């Protein structure tokens, strides 16, 4: 059995960075951080955007201005409201005081919310250089951070490097019997864009087996079009439309994922198919 680490469906409003263990600070003799931590736990029950939540964390920071968790927790509402200026100031503090805990998160958010590809690559690679363990998943659980890094390389035009990164991470995942929600699709699109059509088809078929999406059939259609297999081209477009209308499409609560398509894209392609006599 394969395990699908598509945690976003289960925890769309949760955060994967663990709540700190305040007692650990006390055990190690850091009483200031212990007090700041105890204060910060007062956020429980308050919405991230609320003044009560923010005020508790301000008080925590007043107790210990190096308490990374409080900066991170404060930053979330600014991130989600698109206030990149305040978010960056806060998350930078969290990274400054605990880089191993927050670099991966900051890198992922740069990518997910602001399409800051180079910044995301810097953060993820920095994290990788600091630790000797697996750098783990994106905050929402959809991607391994290496996959996210690969997608960023693709976005800045380094497609062969992106392919190598995705191939490597997917291989590692498969050894653990894991697969990412969209990994095969993204690698398939990369193969399509670099004209490795047979490999692209292989990947899209794997994606179909694990998590069928309108996007997957759409890009599979484009691949068949390149190979002049017009029956499959049209058939895949019809499947893409059916999936899309049925809600089987890429989605994210906060952003539009890379390689996402819209109904208009499918319908335009179907019109092209008909106008060119592909019946």
């Amino acid at each position, binding site marked *: 059995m394969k395990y699908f680490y598509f945690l976003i469906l289960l925890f769309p409003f949760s955060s994967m960075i663990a709540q700190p263990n305040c007692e650990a600070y006390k055990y190690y003799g850091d009483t200031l951080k212990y007090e700041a931590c105890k204060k910060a736990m007062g956020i429980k029950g308050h919405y991230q955007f609320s003044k009560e939540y923010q005020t508790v964390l301000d008080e925590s920071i007043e107790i210990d201005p190096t308490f990374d968790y409080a900066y991170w927790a404060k930053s979330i509402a600014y991130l989600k409201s698109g206030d990149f200026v305040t978010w960056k100031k806060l998350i930078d503090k969290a990274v400054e005081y605990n880089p191993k805990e927050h670099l991966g998160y900051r890198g992922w958010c740069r990518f997910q919310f*602001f399409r800051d590809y180079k910044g995301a690559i810097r953060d993820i690679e920095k994290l990788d250089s600091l630790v000797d363990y697996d750098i783990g998943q994106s905050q929402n659980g959809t991607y391994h951070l290496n996959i996210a890094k690969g997608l960023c390389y693709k976005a800045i035009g380094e497609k062969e490097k992106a392919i190598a990164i995705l191939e490597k991470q997917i291989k590692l995942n498969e050894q653990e019997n894991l697969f990412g929600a969209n990994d095969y699709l993204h690698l398939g699109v990369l193969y399509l864009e670099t004209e490795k059509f047979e490999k692209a088809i292989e990947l899209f078929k794997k994606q179909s087996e694990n998590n069928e999406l309108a996007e997957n059939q759409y890009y599979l259609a484009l691949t068949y079009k390149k190979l002049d297999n017009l029956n499959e081209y049209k058939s895949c477009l019809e499947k893409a439309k059916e999936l899309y209308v049925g809600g089987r499409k890429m989605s994210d609560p906060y952003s539009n994922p890379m390689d996402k398509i819209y109904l208009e894209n499918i319908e335009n392609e179907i019109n092209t198919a008909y106008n060119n006599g592909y019946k």
Partner: protein
Amino acid sequence: MKKSFLTTILLLSIFWSCQTEKKVNEKEEYLRWVGDIEHNAQIDEIDFKVCNGDDKILQYFNLGEGPVYRGEKSKILNAFKSKYQPISGKNQNGLIRIRFIVNCKGKAGRFRVLQSDFDYQEKEFDKETVSQLLNITKGIENWEVFKRHEVPVDYYIYLIFKITDGQLTEILP
């Protein structure tokens, strides 16, 4: 002499109390929620009204549907692609966020602009760049109506524009 000493003490006390009050006020600067946009009669449209009161305005993602646009995002992309005229010049690089409220009828208002360079440091773009983006956004007449328990709600949403050398390279989310 004694009088002037007392006056000085009194002035210092007043000064000190103002400083203290300011500090307390800083803590209380938060509105109900981070990013709440209060009505400003100087800049906001007279005819724009929220339906359920300011204290019930949600965030676009509170309803679990993600960023949804009437006519899908492609309609938004097409609007900017067809109308935005790049302004060349130095320093036209970075991010511009336009945040606003969509009311229960799908109408938008209370637009606010945030600008930064690619290092997330606040800056100001050419006024023409900003006004174009603002006007095109305001020109989108209908936004998606979100409902909670079958009741149409008011919600905050934003568009972020990535600008490189004056060119609009991406629109988020």
